[in-house]
């Protein structure tokens, strides 16, 4: 049998496997599952969240003990982390803190370290779980990423209102150059820019932030799945041509796998830095 003829079936199977299904029934067919059904993505979301929580809880407790020990002994060197793992986590948190200070500013930045760090480590751990065979990233379904983007939306809108007041935040959507124009320009151009900025701030931002994460993870898994299907289908029957195609697919699969690890990091980073940028634009809304 020609392997290419079986490919559409394999891809359909793959797409089905990546859709939202009850966690205990991989071959579920029929209408989309309801809100109260425990789905495969929710299971992996819970696993990723628990992993992050347990790691950070243990590390934080250890650091706290270390701190009180150093206070007692009075030596600065006792503050240094004792194990490589603790040191690694500390490095990650410092990375987030530096990013927050860099983007949001030295005064307001450190306040948001915990918020940004939660997003970064949750998405990162979940994306890494998605690369383990059998695992799934929660970002592989639109519902989860929309929920994350909505949390970000609520936070940056709230910060904007709190820092500038309702009218101040709305006014800041119009650039200051337009605000200083003559009256006709202010009304004509101002209302037009306000409309554009309003749509891009309140609608496009959460939309793109959620779709970016979802699209990258979903597309990555489809690519990995298609190459795996190629390998399986072509290696099944031995001939020189089949073997060549299978070997090349295998090579590409390995390369794409490495690339997906990179994407897992970069998407967690991009999501976090965009959150920081949105918060920054709310905090400093009156300045531009």
């Amino acid at each position, binding site marked *: 049998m020609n392997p290419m003829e079986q490919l559409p079936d394999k891809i359909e199977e793959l797409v089905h496997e990546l859709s939202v299904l009850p966690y205990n029934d991989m071959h579920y067919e029929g209408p989309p599952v309801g809100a109260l059904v425990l789905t495969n993505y929710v299971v992996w979301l819970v696993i990723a969240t628990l992993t992050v929580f347990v790691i950070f809880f243990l590390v934080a407790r250890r650091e706290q003990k270390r701190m009180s020990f150093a206070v007692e002994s009075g030596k600065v060197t006792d503050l240094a982390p004792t194990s490589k793992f603790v040191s690694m986590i500390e490095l990650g948190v410092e990375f987030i803190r530096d*990013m927050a200070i*860099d*983007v949001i500013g030295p005064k307001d930045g450190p306040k948001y370290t915990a918020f940004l760090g939660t997003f970064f480590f949750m998405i990162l751990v979940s994306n890494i779980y998605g690369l383990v065979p059998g695992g799934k990233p929660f970002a592989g379904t639109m519902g989860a990423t929309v929920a994350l983007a909505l949390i970000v939306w609520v936070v940056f809108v709230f910060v904007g209102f709190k820092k500038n007041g309702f009218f101040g935040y709305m006014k800041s959507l119009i650039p200051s150059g337009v605000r200083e124009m003559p009256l006709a320009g202010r009304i004509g151009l101002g209302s037009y820019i306000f409309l554009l900025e309003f749509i891009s701030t309140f609608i*496009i931002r959460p*939309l*793109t932030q959620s*779709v*970016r994460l979802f*699209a990258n993870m979903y597309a990555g898994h489809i690519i990995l799945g298609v190459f795996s299907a190629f390998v399986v289908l072509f290696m099944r029957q031995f001939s020189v041509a089949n073997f060549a195609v299978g070997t090349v697919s295998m090579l590409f699969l390995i390369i794409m796998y490495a690339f997906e690890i990179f994407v897992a990091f*970069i998407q967690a*980073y*991009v999501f976090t*830095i*965009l959150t920081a*940028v949105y918060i920054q634009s709310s905090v400093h809304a009156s300045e531009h």
Partner: protein
Amino acid sequence: MEAGLVAIGKGLAYGLAAIGPGVGIGIVGGKALEAMARQPEMAGRIQTTMFIAIAFTEALALLGFVLTFLL
């Protein structure tokens, strides 16, 4: 017939939406590389800004991607 046309439309929607951002991200990346080569000590800041710029450019392609699902 109709399903085939929808499939072609989906392909066109995403393909056309990817042209502009493709060029844009190329320019962003190239310029960032140029800047980093001129001032290696600013590489960290430039990289951060580059990622933000790429994210904004990419948004247009993502709108096309969403459109393929909506069609």
